[in-house]
């Protein structure tokens, strides 16, 4: 089977679903399920006009900030916990607790401490990303092949080179897998954090549209969020392919959370 026919074959189901929806929606006149045209018009009006700078960009900016801070802090903490056994023993139960505590459950606490706004939203995203990355980086550091450690020692590779050229790449399958999991969690947390009374953002607009019976706009929001989740995940698959994939390593899923 050629690549093209393979692609066509895979496109049948989604195309049929979308066509079926449109066929049904045009006839059903159900206000909850507007036809595609109406959703597309609303999508353009809501997200691609002034809404882009008012809602889409702030949402993404919070996501990017929170994600990157959480990721970097998580990797740094994971390196520390992976190398220092006393710290690992000391903080083990606490880290375990925060790993399994769903980040969304912390929203009330963050709202009380920081109020509704960007700081609170970024804070929750940081939290949701940090512990997944922390735990998996620790596991990755612990799993570095003893042979590589020997190479580092035998050739007297200094601490900085050892960390950046040896230990971190060796732990990369764990870190990359965690970063991918963390990204999808961060998207969820971003949206939820906007639904607890934020005046702007993709999540806020979408939930408000539902409450105001603007169903086409609600659908436009759902489509945008779905596209966002999908494309971020696809972008990450590329990152994976050009790092661990290229080195012939396989991303390892360790501990996860939501």
């Amino acid at each position, binding site marked *: 089977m050629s690549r093209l026919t393979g692609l066509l074959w895979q496109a049948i189901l989604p195309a049929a679903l979308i066509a079926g929806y449109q066929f049904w929606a045009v006839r059903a006149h159900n206000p909850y399920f507007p036809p595609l045209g109406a959703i597309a018009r609303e999508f353009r009006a809501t997200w691609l006009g002034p809404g882009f700078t008012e809602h889409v960009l702030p949402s993404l900016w919070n996501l990017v900030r929170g994600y990157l801070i959480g990721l970097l802090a998580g990797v740094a903490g994971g390196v520390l916990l992976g190398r220092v056994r006393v710290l690992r023993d000391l903080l083990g139960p606490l880290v375990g607790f925060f790993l399994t505590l769903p980040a969304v459950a912390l929203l009330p606490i963050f709202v009380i401490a920081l109020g509704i706004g960007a700081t609170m939203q970024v804070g929750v995203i940081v939290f949701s990303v940090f512990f997944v990355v922390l735990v998996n980086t620790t596991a990755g550091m612990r799993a570095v092949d003893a042979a590589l450690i020997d190479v580092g*020692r035998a050739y007297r590779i200094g601490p900085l080179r050892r960390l950046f*050229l040896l230990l971190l790449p060796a732990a990369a399958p764990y870190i990359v897998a965690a970063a991918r999991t963390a990204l999808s969690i961060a998207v969820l947390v971003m949206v939820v954090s906007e639904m607890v009374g934020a005046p702007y953002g993709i999540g806020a607009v979408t939930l408000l549209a539902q409450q105001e019976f603007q169903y086409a706009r609600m659908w436009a929001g759902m489509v945008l969020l779905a596209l966002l989740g999908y494309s971020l995940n696809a972008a990450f698959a590329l990152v994976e392919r050009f790092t661990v994939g290229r080195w*012939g390593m396989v991303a390892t899923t360790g501990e996860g959370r939501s």
Partner: protein
Amino acid sequence: MSDTLVSVEHLTKFYGDHLAVDGVTFGVRTGEMVSIVGPSGAGKTTALRIVAGLLEPTSGSVTIGGVRVTGPPPDVAVVFQDYSRSLLPWLTVLGNVTLPLRAKGLSRTAARTAALDALAAVGLDGTARRRPRELSGGMQQRVAIARALAYRPKLLVMDEPFASVDAQTRMDLEDLILPLRQEYAVTIMLVTHDIDEAVYLSDRIVVLSPAPSTVLRVIDVDLPLPRSQTATKELPGFARLRHEVLDLVRARTD
């Protein structure tokens, strides 16, 4: 030629209650190639790791060039058994060879030149930009050897370096090492379980007993240089030495 580079004295190593190495003493002279053989489970690799400074002995000492080994010494390079684990898959071939040189303080260009020379010496011209996993097993082990040679060590320590490649590649690698000894003026300590290999490559052979390991005998290999896979191995001297080592190794395992 006859001054001692490495001296191993009364080396003893316990792993918990298990006595792996029991008072091993031997020396390696400058420019010499010494093999350490023994049945599997003998403390060959343990002894080698102590010499390379990767492991602390329980008692006894190793001195290299008169300096007591307390950690990995600066003029020792190691070739590990498993090339697939000892090369860094995220670096290019060149990156793998230059990493220790850069860590040693060589400039980027100096490291690069030394690395390319060493790669050429092991017959790997033109592979500098490739990644280890794009190469065959034998070529990967050549990269590991180039990494060790480029480091310009006084002592090259090799732990079963040819155990993970096929028989043909193994002979090629053995014949690669012999001339490189002269070219890089390096003293070599080789751990192997292959008796033919030990006899073929070495100037002397240290035969260890099963654990707790002691030195059973140190055998001088008086075969003429240069050696060849066909001519040397057909010499009566080769067969005699092979016989002697094999008897020692087997008598103790039965």
